[in-house]
């Protein structure tokens, strides 16, 4: 069971890295708004064609 002297600290080291990652994400504001990103992806992005050539005036779509 001597292996515990290596395994437990190793496990704790992994947890420490996870906590660091969580702290990084929290400080970057990844958890500030949990609602909007979920809604944002519901609509597709503009296609390249529409983005490149905005028509000059009101136009009809058929």
């Amino acid at each position: 069971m001597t292996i515990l002297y290596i395994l437990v600290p190793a496990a704790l080291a992994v947890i420490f890295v996870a906590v660091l990652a969580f702290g990084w994400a929290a400080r970057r504001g990844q958890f500030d708004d949990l609602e909007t990103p979920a809604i944002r992806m519901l609509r597709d992005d503009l296609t390249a064609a529409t983005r490149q050539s905005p028509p000059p005036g009101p136009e009809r779509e058929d």
Partner: protein
Amino acid sequence: MSATLAEPVTRSGLSCVHCGLPVPSPATALPEADGPFCCAGCRTAWQVIHAAGLGEYYASGDRRLAAVTPSGRRYDEYDHPSFESLYGTTLPDGTREIALYLDRVHCASCVWLVERVPLAVPGALAAELDVPRSLATIRWNPGVTSLGTIARFLDQLGYPSHPFQGGRGEANRRAEDRTMLLHIGVAGAIALNVMTLALALYAGWFGSMEAEYTRYFRWLSMALTVPAVVWPGRVFFTSAWGALRARRLHMDVPIALALGAGTLRGVVNTVAETGPIYFDGVVTLIFLLLVGRFLQQRAQRSAADAAELLHGLTPHTARLVTGAGVEEVPSRSLVPGVTVEVRPGDTVPADGIAREGRSALDLSVLTGESAPVSVGAGEPVFAGTVNLGATIRVEVTQAGEASRLGRILRELEAGMRRRAPVVHTADRLAGWFVAAVLVLAAVTYLVWSRRDPTVALDNAIALLVVTCPCALALATPLTFTAAIGRAARQLVLIRGADALEVLSRPGQLVLDKTGTLTEGRLALETWIGGAGLEPVVLGLERHSRHPIAAAFARAWPTRTAAVIEDPASTLGAGVTGRGGDHRYAIGSVAFVLARAIDPNRLADRIPGHQTGVLLARDGVVVAAAGFGDPLRTDSMAAVARLGERGWTIGILSGDAPGAVAAVGARLGIPPERVRGGVTPEGKLAAVRELAARGPVVMVGDGVNDAPAIGAATVGVGVRGGAEACLAAADVFLAKTGLGPLVTLFEGAERTMAVVRRNIAVSIGYNLVGAALAVTGTIDPLIAAVMMPVSSLTVILLSVRSKTFEAPR
């Protein structure tokens, strides 16, 4: 285009190509090659979206089902240097950033549209929307475009904006939230690991664990627990210390006591290598309590945002008339005696007297009435009202804080500050709880020190730890958070748990009339005249922008408008025109009678509390119409239901006393509790007077109700009017009608029942635990099982209980 949309079956069979709502009637449909549109607002939005190359907005069937109503504001103040310094920030690269509160954002298409602003407005660099808070963060290049341009663009799409006093306070709060999350993360990671270690220790308790590994695990637990107590757990100690210094007891005192005693005893026992360590209990406690606290704080946050929005109601710049012309100045620099110019779409910057010009003003900010009111030279105008008609010049009599709006806002703030804090049930219990636990611990120690001094201290500490009101402290915020979340799904938005506690017990309920009990818009209630005249009326009224015109169109959706030649509209009075061989005049009683040769008695048949409209053909009055503000369909049932629940209901309204009394009588409210013709200041005084007798709940819909809403124990805002100004309310009903009000009161009652049940359950656990500790039979295993089980029970009870579910 419209062929690709699902077209709902309507009377006219058409649906608006922008919002998808049914087009009410061919009479109101705007004849358009691209159309049909339900209203001018939707047509503008459609054109703007296509002009910006965002036609893909219509590619998906999912979009906002609401007609676009632009506010008509000009947003010139957004481009004033003082505005920038008040609300915005300049980034290091020279671009600027601002947070704007947008009205009416709710859905996925709103996010899509608002965040496409950079594609539509050259110079706008980024736009990001935070839906739960309705905040849009916009970054733009001041060299290319102006914030006013961006704000006008958003307004045309149906998102009027208000500046949000972000910047400093906002950054602080964000940082605070993030730190709290980090604490939760650290505490959670440590708690799970200490529990794993504890599990091994408990398993070893039965089996044969070598002493070497037992010691190793105990020291590891300690090494993990101490940082958790010192870092994330510190908040409980500082908070308890603060409470003790203020000579008050709240929930944090017993918590800090348990955490402190448990940790110290655990450390001593680890070093001495005897007795129980309490580390697993301690860290789980810290983790769960932090989660509870975080949830509670998030809910209360938004209340603070709200008060700031009110300041967006007053304009920041004014057009000062000088000898050399018109000059734009900050409205703070206005002094009584100067003259300002107010153009159409402008907000009146100060109180004053109109000197030149005639126009119609939207006074809804002060009166709650949506109908425009006409003003002429010599008549008073008030800050915050919006000019809808023509340019007028106003001599300033009172500006800034001294204006009527300034005073109302100040009263509102004062009311919100003075509001008596609601004592939470859990906190009220905490005092007794601490006293009982301390006495019990002392008794345990004394009794055991006579019988067996070696275990006396351990038993006393076991008592402190096991009776820690974890479940109690976690249960209340969790239940409230779960209930608030459920309520939000039913469009009842609640800020803070205080409101729920007050609403659960019957008290005094004060309702506003216009827009709350009633529709808040005119409807045809009396019509004396032949059906043959209806097309003529519609034809004439097509040339008027008065709300009466819209009310006629709503009343007769199936009629076609007659063709009227030579129409002439007099602002706020009426319309004249020629149809066939006849000359017609329609409008207010005075307007028509002044043009009539035969003023017969038709006008007298309109009931007194209704707004009268006459129609004259070739000088003969041939028809009369009476308009009123009809009761909402669910008002009657809601008032009856709340009355049954024991609420004392009254009405306070700014409308004419006659009309208010009529509504009160129909709802069966005793006349002594129904008051009409009350000013915003009067409403405030009345609510204060009632508040002296007990908790008051005020329900209203406009800025004129805002001071009273602020002064009431709980203020409820109903949908309609400017959403930003009602954000000051504790509860906001985002669904029209009074039905949600009943949902709110019944939900609050069920929520408090759940809270009480949770408190009972957790006290039950504590009693059992205390009994075991006092008798000295508690061992670490039982404590380890009881801790999480009690917390889990309470969490499940809180989250699963149907507080705001629609019955059945």
